[in-house]
């Protein structure tokens, strides 16, 4: 696949010679048309810089950026302005013009693109309808909630029918409920128009909800990238693992520590963290091991979630049984593509379950 957005060996360094900070080091990414591509990383990992290189808000020191076959990094300032009209962008802090009403904000890009006033208003109203703010066109941004502001941001970003929508931490200053509704909006737009979306975030939840593919950025480099579902089932890089654990909301209850202490002393008891993805989530694996190996299972905590539409479950259980029944059941589970983390002490519990 050629890739609608292609980054080739992008490098960016900030600061002077004496105090250099390498933000990006030889980063290459390909985003296919119609994809929702997530870029995740801890704060300061360089992910924001990376997305800003795509529309040259940040000029990379080295490497090339292509959007829809056009080499953005090779354009003059006039051509770059034209190219930017086809690259929509939304921001963490919305960045709406406080001096303009909602409708005037939405049609601002059309004004810059020199569209007739009548056409601007017509299109602006249609966009507001799309984001569900048709009754707010005469309001000023300061009269809106954060979620509404971001909806205006989305409408504005879509005004020029962009080929790609860049989202720079669009939900990072929103509450969880509003975050979900904005992510749903992005998902709807992606499906309705086949619009390619690049989503920068530090929340694994956002990736899990709407992204098809994801790249994990750590220390200015791509730690790993691929399909979201693969990332959740078999994360390779430490950052990825930590982020997945952090997002799979199973907080071990306090009394789990007591059980853990008791079980670590007993040879026939073992606390494990099980994670299921896709098919194995639908299978009655727990009752299978109870029946086939004669183990007892004490469920300490559990959670089932979805990655896009694929179920994904995490469970913290204590297995107990005679002889090597516990070991056998662990092998059996592994054979079913259930990932099993053996938890032996409190630090395991904290790192592997609570996500550090």
């Amino acid at each position, binding site marked *: 696949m050629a890739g609608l957005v292609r980054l080739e060996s992008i490098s960016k360094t900030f600061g002077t010679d004496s105090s250099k900070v390498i933000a990006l080091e030889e980063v290459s990414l390909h985003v296919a048309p119609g994809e929702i591509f997530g870029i995740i990383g801890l704060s300061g990992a360089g992910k924001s810089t990376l997305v800003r290189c795509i529309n040259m808000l940040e000029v990379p020191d080295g490497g090339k950026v292509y959007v829809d076959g056009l080499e953005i990094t090779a354009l003059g300032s006039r051509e770059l302005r034209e190219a*930017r009209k086809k690259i929509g962008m939304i921001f963490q802090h919305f*960045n709406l013009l406080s*001096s303009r009403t909602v409708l005037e904000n939405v049609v601002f890009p059309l004004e810059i*693109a020199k569209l007739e006033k009548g056409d601007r208003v017509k299109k602006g109203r249609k966009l507001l309808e799309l984001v569900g703010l048709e009754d707010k066109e005469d309001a000023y941004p300061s009269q809106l909630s954060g979620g509404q502001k971001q909806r205006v941001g989305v409408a504005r970003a879509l005004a020029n029918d962009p080929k790609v929508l*860049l989202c720079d931490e669009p939900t990072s200053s929103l509450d969880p409920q509003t975050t979900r509704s904005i992510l749903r909006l992005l998902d709807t737009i992606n499906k309705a128009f086949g619009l390619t979306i690049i989503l920068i975030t530090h929340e694994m939840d956002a990736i899990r909800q709407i992204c098809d593919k994801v790249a994990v950025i750590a220390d200015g480099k791509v730690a790993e990238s691929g399909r979201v579902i693969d990332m959740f089932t078999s994360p390779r890089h430490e950052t990825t693992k930590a982020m997945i654990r952090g997002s799979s909301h199973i907080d071990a209850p306090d009394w789990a520590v007591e059980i853990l202490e008791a079980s670590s002393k007993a040879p026939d008891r073992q606390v494990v963290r099980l994670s299921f993805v896709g098919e194995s989530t639908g299978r009655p694996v727990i009752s299978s091991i109870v029946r086939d190996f004669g183990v007892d299972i004490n469920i300490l905590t559990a959670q089932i979630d979805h990655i896009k539409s694929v179920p994904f479950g995490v469970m913290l259980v204590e297995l107990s049984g005679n002889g090597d029944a516990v070991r056998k059941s662990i092998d059996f589970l592994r054979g079913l593509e259930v990932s099993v983390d053996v938890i032996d002490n409190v630090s395991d519990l904290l790192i592997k379950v609570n996500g550090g």
Partner: protein
Amino acid sequence: MFDARLVRIIVSSLGETLYMVGVSCALAVVLGLPIGVVLVTTEKKNILDNPGVNQAFGAAVNIGRSIPFVILMVAIMPFTRILTGTSIGTTAAIVPLTIAAVPFVARMVETSLREVDPGVVEAAQAIGASPWEIITKVLIPEAKPSLILGVTITAINLVGYSTMAGAIGGGGLGDLAVRYGYQRFRGDVMFATVVILVLLVQGVQTLGGTLAKKVEKRRS
């Protein structure tokens, strides 16, 4: 207590002051606004990043602001004569008043524009707006309430400067206060002048404040 002639003189002096302040303030805004815009936009990393131009304008503005008004007025008399044909009178006073106010306005504009959220400018850049469009459609409209207050302060300063100009033959309320209030020992005229000046400043401040609030209020 004043006879009709004195009242006429006071009224016409007030008219002269309003004329001097009004015209010089308008000219100072017309000339100072672009300079303020240049000071902000040519800064490093800004939309027209140009350190050379930035430093040149910055230095010029600082020189302009460091010359005391009384000295400026006298020093540029030849220049004033070229522009207006005379170095005495109300119209002539407009030249030094404007020149003194331009760098002041420029710094005021600079401060106001700097308050504009850089994120908003970035959003405009991402949309494909040119520097000119960013200046006229983003920076200035976003800074409007603050700019209005800046003009208000400039106008009030100019009222003060205009009385100095009056003292050396520029006419207006300052001239009136010196000729009647001081040289002819008319304490009542002096008092009336001061009262009028206080009211004038009060009026300008209220007008500017109300206008700025009105613009601001529409947005919140």
